């Protein structure tokens, strides 16, 4: 098998190739404003590094967020399009679960923990996990202060942005496509359709009553 994994739900644009045994190539660039520019060059570079062609791919995995919408859509549009063109299955995984898998892979805290990423507007996208890394609540979006009572250790950029709300910051800070690929291969993550987890409605209000243009 050859799995291409990618995630654009945070400022990190991350891609990886996995052959079912191990990660053959991975690359991550952190830049919140350049997702469309970075993603496909990273994909072609990973394929070249692994000595593989696009025709060798057998499945795709994509982080479905939650995350800032514009960046999130870049990865989903790419994964869905590649899946359709190459006729490959596209597995969606909650991007917070990717971070949680990274926590377990790196340095498991041995206690319940949280994942919190930057949702802007002084809020985080968050989920909580038991000591074994199984999601217990979330994904959701809201002020980090809402999690302060539990004082969990937390991975993700949100834990760094709002240190008062968490016991301490865990690694990783950003999701890694290598973790995403490994989680899919190990069947250690819930597989979702490749649909974005927006969690917020679009900012838009129907027009209000018109204002007077005449002097009173």
């Amino acid at each position: 098998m050859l799995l291409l994994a990618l995630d654009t739900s945070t400022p990190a644009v991350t891609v990886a190739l996995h052959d079912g045994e191990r990660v053959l190539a991975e690359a991550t660039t952190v830049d919140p404003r350049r997702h469309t520019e970075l993603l496909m060059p990273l994909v072609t570079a990973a394929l070249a590094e692994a000595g593989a062609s696009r025709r060798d791919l057998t499945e795709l995995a994509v982080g479905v967020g939650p995350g800032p919408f514009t960046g999130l859509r870049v990865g989903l549009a790419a994964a869905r399009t590649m899946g359709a063109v190459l006729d490959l299955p596209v597995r969606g995984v909650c991007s917070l679960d990717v971070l949680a898998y990274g926590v377990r892979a790196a340095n498991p805290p041995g206690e319940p923990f949280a994942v919190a990423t930057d949702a802007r507007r002084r809020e985080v996208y968050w989920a909580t996990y038991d000591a074994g890394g199984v999601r217990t609540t979330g994904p959701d979006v809201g002020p980090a202060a809402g999690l302060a009572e539990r004082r969990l250790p937390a991975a993700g950029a949100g834990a760094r942005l709002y240190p008062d709300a968490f016991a301490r910051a865990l690694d990783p800070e950003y999701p890694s496509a290598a973790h995403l690929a490994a989680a899919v291969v190990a069947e250690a993550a819930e597989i979702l359709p490749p649909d974005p987890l927006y969690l917020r409605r679009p900012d838009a209000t129907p027009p209000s009553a018109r204002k007077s243009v005449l002097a009173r």
Partner: protein
Amino acid sequence: MSDQPLILGIETSCDETGVGLVRGTTLLANAVASSVDEHVRFGGVVPEVASRAHLEAMVPTLQRALAEAGASLDDVDAVAVTAGPGLAGALMVGVSAAKALAVALDKPLYGVNHLVGHVAAEQLENGPLTEPVVALLVSGGHTEILLVEDIATSATLLGQTLDDAAGEAFDKVARLIGLKYPGGPNIQRAAEEGDPAAIRFPRGLTSQRDLERHRYDFSFSGLKTAVARWVETAEREGRAVPVADVAAGFQEAVADVLTRKAVLACQERGISTMVLAGGVAANARLRDLTRERCAVAGIELRQPRFSLCTDNGAMIAALGAAVVERGLPPSSLDFASDSSLPVTQVLVG
């Protein structure tokens, strides 16, 4: 015909997800999914709503275009995509999909200019253009006069709106007189019953002084305010607002100033062909007045059918075909979409 390369074009700059297939100047497919219905209750295009709709529509629209053309992806020789100008988040969906498509097919990718694409669409209707041409582009997102010296390489902006796009002005005035979004068709319908000479609304940037500084530019905010004042004054005085006459008078003011300046540009630049395109080019009064004035001025008017006037993927494929035919190098895979891409940049690097 079949020895010309098959170009697939993707357009997502505003609220239409478009995928088109073109060989040379031959149209093979033009599939469009519009999110216009989702914007109605907001009275205008909501960028986030449009972007979400693009993501959902992209793959189905691609499949529809292929079915329409009776083509398979293996037949595609190159991919073209709108790199800008347009709504930033909306553009990114199309560019990301196009890059993934190009990589998955291992075919060259061309990021092209949306505005020049509107002009290229005309070639699908009436065959190759003889440049130079002046193009009047009027839509809900833009209002420009372009000078196109070479469709694949050289275009300049002669004038543009300083505030609202013409289509936005239609939307806002429609609201003022109790008509629904989108304003264009609804104002046109109301105006059919009205007298365009009953109320004379101002023509923006047509005074002698304005013509010096903004010879080919437009402004519709003053017109919109004038309509608002007129309507409000009538209401205060307890008079019924003659919706049909207001609609007709407003539509006449827009059509008058658009055509007057476009014809002026042709005359002053010695250009004998004008292309009229963009969603507002569907307006019957604008079409008629443009035809009339071009005929008087001895200018050949060219305009594509409505489905090629509004935003669509075929126009992007058509421009891509022109660029490919010229043997220009493809865009690099790391090009950025640019919401304010200048019209001088027909193809991005």
